[in-house]
């Protein structure tokens, strides 16, 4: 079943085009990452997919229902975590979730369970305003998880967090995947995307450049294709990664002169640079 589909989405604000002909589909149970630099149109796309914003042309659908036409019960099946969705600073973590639980007719035990799932059960009575940035992110994540949705949109969930806090969020997202939840994730952190996502799409200036599994993209756009040998005398030798190099490499191994051997491992950053000529983390 297709959880999310985007067909030829275009979005322009006055004369400025933010998204250009964006199309993709995400099957149920997949973690899909939208990777792109700041200002590439990631948040705008999430807003269109979740029905917060109408596209200039094209269409978006969640579980085969147009995003703008989602009913309240359908919305309940979709969790959204966006940086701009604030928390009630004066209310406790528990009361923050209680507001949304009341909207969906969810009982108190589910709130406690959700707080435990995001590691905030000890902070249930603490006002949200007193939480650290990482904990606030967890609270927003808890709000997205509260209704046990089948689809979750996460807009830069680890933005501005320290590595330990980001790691915890990654674990929570991975746990959702185990439940069969579809996750749509935007990020400009290539490591996060490589680690979490089944498939990614690279977005630049509102256009999807390429999409596919991270490992496959790295292989496809690996321009370096080199094998580097470090010899016992300290010298470093590089060979093109093709069959013609095999005899020379084998000879060095047979002579016992090789100390280490490395193939050049491309990452999403190098894929992005290959495709755009720009760096990703801008």
């Amino acid at each position, binding site marked *: 079943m297709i959880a999310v589909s985007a067909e030829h989405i275009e979005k322009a604000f006055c004369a400025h085009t933010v998204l250009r002909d964006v199309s993709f589909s995400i099957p149920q149970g997949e973690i899909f990452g939208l990777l792109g630099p700041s200002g590439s149109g990631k948040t705008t796309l999430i807003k269109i997919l979740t029905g*917060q914003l109408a596209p200039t042309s094209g269409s978006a659908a969640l579980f085969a229902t147009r995003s703008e036409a989602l009913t309240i019960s359908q919305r309940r099946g979709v969790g*959204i975590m966006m940086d701009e969705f604030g928390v009630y600073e004066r209310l406790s973590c528990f009361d923050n979730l209680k507001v949304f639980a*009341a909207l969906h007719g969810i009982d108190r035990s589910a709130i406690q369970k959700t707080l435990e799932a995001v590691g905030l059960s000890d902070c249930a009575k603490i006002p949200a305003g007193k939480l650290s940035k990482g904990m606030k992110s967890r609270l927003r994540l808890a709000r997205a998880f509260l209704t046990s949705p089948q689809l979750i949109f996460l807009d830069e969930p680890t933005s501005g967090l320290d590595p330990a806090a980001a790691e915890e969020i990654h674990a929570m997202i991975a746990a959702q995947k185990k439940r069969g939840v579809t996750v749509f994730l935007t990020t400009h952190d290539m490591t996060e995307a490589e680690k979490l996502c089944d498939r990614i799409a690279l977005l630049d200036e509102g256009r999807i450049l390429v999409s596919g599994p991270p490992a496959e993209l790295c292989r496809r756009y690996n321009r370096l294709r080199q094998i580097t040998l470090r010899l016992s005398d300290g010298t470093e030798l590089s060979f093109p990664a093709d069959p013609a190099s095999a005899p020379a490499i084998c000879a060095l191994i047979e002579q016992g002169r090789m100390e280490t051997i490395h193939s050049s491992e491309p990452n999403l950053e190098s894929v992005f640079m290959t495709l755009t000529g720009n760096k990703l983390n801008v």
Partner: protein
Amino acid sequence: MRSVVAVLEKQIKDTWKNKTVLIQFLMFPFMTILMNHTVRIETMPKHFFTELFAVMYLGMAPLVSATSILSEEKERGTLRALLMAGVKPGEYLLGVGLYVWTGCMIGSLLMVFFDDYTAKQASLFLLVAALGIPFSLVIGACVGIASRSQMAATSLSVPLMLLTSFLPMLAMFNASVEAVARYTYPQQLKVLLVDAERGMIGAGSCLILLGNGLFLLVLFMILYKKNGLE
């Protein structure tokens, strides 16, 4: 209905922690009680302070509270989170409106309770308050809808609040101001509060209130259509 109740509950929970709104609800009732029990002048009309402060209260508290709640939710992005959770704009406004109305009615009740009104006078006083609160509430909602931030909302609400709460007092001292003020709802609320003391309510005042109400509703609808809730 579930959404309205959820918004209402959230506001009630927030009351003791939201100083801006709490002060608005309690400031004038406490001032009234204080003045009534400390200032005694022979020639002063009965219920003078209650009527004076009640008009100010009805002009100020609902306006500032509604503006503060709406603009804060807009600025912090909690309003968007509520709307994405399936709360309709009308349900949200109704929830906030009910909360502010109830808070101000409790304040009005305190004013009446600590003054020596008869049961009939008190009932009429509270009826006038119940009718008057929505006027300032709608103005507050208009300001909240038209403002993008709390700062912008404050810069709009302060002059409006001064106008709605002090106009009847200025009208007491200046005939020209009174000639204009008599067509506004704060002045008519003052007239009705004095009438309530006599145990009657004038039809003329009700007509002017109706006109003011229609004008404010049209203004609200125009602003809502133009800006939406977000």
